[in-house]
């Protein structure tokens, strides 16, 4: 009897261990749409082909709520999640994320260690960036020609019609200040004062009645296509995909763009930690980051990937000029100050919500 039990137990153990090492399955969560597609093509498929593991891709709508509930309930099912910078910092602060050892990240092809190869701010205790994206505003050039600066977004007389804006004070307050004449470099200094916040809200007041608010990244191209708004803030990649992929006459205005990172984080207690870390290291490799850029116009977070960025997958559009990091697009560009937002988001969110409700 005892022998049978032991035998059974060991076979069961051997069996599960065998399955685990032969083919791991990890769950990778991202934002869906064109963006997830770019990741599937550039990261998931090559990694699965190389290791024989499978990647289950799930979509979510951003934020830390799901991670928080999984971690607090002790039933973590997600292995890697693609989050915004402010959420990566906050999740790390709140103890919801695993710390990630940067030494697992592969060096650049010329031997530069990863810590020097990633753009400044792209690596933090719990997160590794994969792309640089930006909040820009876009318009339909067949209907509203002549838009070229951030002021035009707030200029209802020159360009009458509704505006699409993301329902979030982040980026919006900065854009309002820039449209009010504040140079990009001084924005956060001014926003750090009460008068600066008042000034930003006063600028928003001027267009409040003409705003259509959006929350999901897929909405702004739709609002433009429907003719519901004449201009809208948007994530640059979504506009690029609507223009290059679907032939929509949409133009991005780079003046006053606000750059941000998207990063991989691992919820605390992720079930397949080893395989997930392997995927993370693989996907943030120079080659893979450059490969992703042929599917969507988000810039790779590594310097060494830059020169490898080539054509869009239609085989004719050069990706370089559509990247947030392209030289010409940086003239009046702002980098999201995550320290500022980590400190002030509660207060500014409250203020924004009550401003909206009044």
């Amino acid at each position, binding site marked *: 009897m005892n022998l049978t039990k032991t035998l059974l137990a060991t076979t069961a153990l051997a069996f599960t261990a065998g399955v685990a090492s032969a083919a791991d399955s990890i769950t990778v969560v991202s934002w869906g749409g064109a963006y997830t597609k770019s990741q599937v093509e550039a990261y998931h498929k090559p990694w699965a082909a190389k290791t024989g593991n499978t990647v289950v891709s799930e979509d979510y709508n951003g934020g830390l709520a799901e991670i928080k509930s999984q971690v607090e309930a002790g039933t973590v099912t997600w292995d890697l999640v693609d989050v915004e910078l402010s959420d990566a910092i906050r999740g790390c602060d709140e103890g919801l994320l695993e710390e990630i050892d940067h030494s697992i990240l592969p060096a650049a092809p010329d031997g530069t260690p990863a810590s020097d190869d990633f753009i400044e701010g792209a690596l933090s205790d719990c997160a590794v960036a994969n792309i640089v994206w930006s909040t820009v505003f876009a318009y339909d050039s067949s209907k509203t020609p002549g838009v070229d600066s951030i002021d035009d977004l707030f200029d209802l007389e020159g360009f009458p019609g509704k505006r699409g804006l993301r329902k979030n004070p982040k980026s919006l307050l900065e854009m309002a200040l820039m449209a009010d004449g504040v140079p990009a470099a001084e924005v956060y200094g001014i926003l750090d004062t009460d008068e600066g916040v008042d000034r930003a809200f006063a600028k928003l007041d001027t267009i409040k009645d003409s705003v259509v608010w959006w929350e999901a990244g897929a909405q702004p191209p739709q609002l433009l296509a429907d003719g519901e708004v004449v201009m809208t803030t948007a994530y640059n990649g979504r506009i690029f995909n609507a223009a290059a992929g679907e032939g929509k006459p949409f133009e991005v205005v780079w003046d006053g763009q606000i750059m941000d990172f998207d990063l991989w984080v691992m919820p605390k207690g992720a079930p397949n930690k080893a395989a997930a870390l392997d995927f993370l290291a693989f996907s943030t490799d120079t080659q893979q980051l450059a490969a992703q850029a042929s599917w969507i116009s988000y810039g790779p977070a590594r310097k060494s990937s830059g020169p490898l960025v080539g054509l869009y997958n239609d085989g004719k559009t050069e990706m370089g000029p559509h990247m947030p990091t392209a030289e010409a697009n940086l003239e009046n560009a702002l980098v999201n100050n995550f320290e500022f937002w980590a400190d002030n988001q509660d207060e500014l*969110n409250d203020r924004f919500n*009550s401003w909206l409700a009044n």
Partner: protein
Amino acid sequence: MTDTTGSSGPLLAADGTPLKKRLAQAMFRSRARAFGLAFPLIAFIIVVFLVPIVVLLQQAVYDARYTNLMPESAASMSDWDAISPPTEAMAAAMVSDLAKARENKTIGQVATRVNREKSGTRSLFTKTARSAKKMEAPFMEALIAKDKDWADIEVWKAIKIASVTFNPGYVASALDMKYNADGSFERQDEERRIHGKLFYRTLEISFLVTIFCLLLGYPVAYLLSTLTVRTSNLLLILVLLPFWTSLLVRTTAWIAMLQAQGVMNDLFVVFGLATDDARFSLIYNKTGTLIAMTHIMLPFMILPLYSVMKTIPPYYVRAAKSMGATNWTAFWRVYFPQSVPGIGAGAMLVFILAIGYYITPALVGGQDGQMISNIIDFHMRRSLNWNLAAALGLVLLVFVLFLFWLYDRIVGIDNMKLG
């Protein structure tokens, strides 16, 4: 135990046990069997419904994060009056806790908690914690030397509020009040009062939706109940089909219908009711929320009304008319009172569903069509302030229970009929 059978002794069953006892046993067994059948459901409700609600709602008043992570500091502040300057003992406890929190990597959690009470303290905490280990007495001076913000009594007040374990602050803020470090309450600053307005708007929208549903649903239900079964079944499909269609599909369909370049506005332009450059804004505002929600709630009104009207015998109205009542009198005095249980059930169902409605206002509400559920969602998903979300939920729950009670007092819950 007194014996009712008197001196002749208890009635006995065949095996000699008293009949009364046997009966009690049999009753117990059958009740136990019934309970056994219902047990899975009861257990299910407790596990997936009651426990989560209680666990979540207790967050509205219970927040031990600071006390757990910064025990010395929390203890040192417990009898501080929040008026006199912070003491050296408080500073010493703070420095010691900061150093430990950094070591345990919990400093971020502490900082986030205090930052909720006062903006900007997050970086103050994380920055100070980095050098806390090297600090020496006098600690207050050491803290201020690191960052002059430590001299600000407001920072210490914020910490004091964060260190209260049973914290009334969240419920207070759900009611647009502010909880102060000295234990007093005051009204929230003008520009941050938001919940009161949203609660009011939620009630207003729910009330209007209920009225619209009643006005639209009553005639439909009446028609359905008076037609022959064949025709009414056919028409009932028209009510049920949208009811079975996904909520999201119906809401997004309304977006296509109502937007500025949408079907409705195009028709208005064709018929000359609007000009091409001055189209109506029917969506992304309260109008959009009202239209879409009324449509989505309509079956919840029609179905209970229909099931009640179906049971009203038509000869009452005929009798009234034969006695000389006009159509209106016959309807108002005879038919309508009998349909009230259906109205009660439908209105109650629609109103309570509408109060907690979330997805439709989120999609078509714009800025003035948002409801309280949208701000609860915001605090659950975006700001991660689950305590405040729980407090708002608690207020909403209490309110719904109050309405329920009121309804019972005025109409009587026995009068409600769901079919």
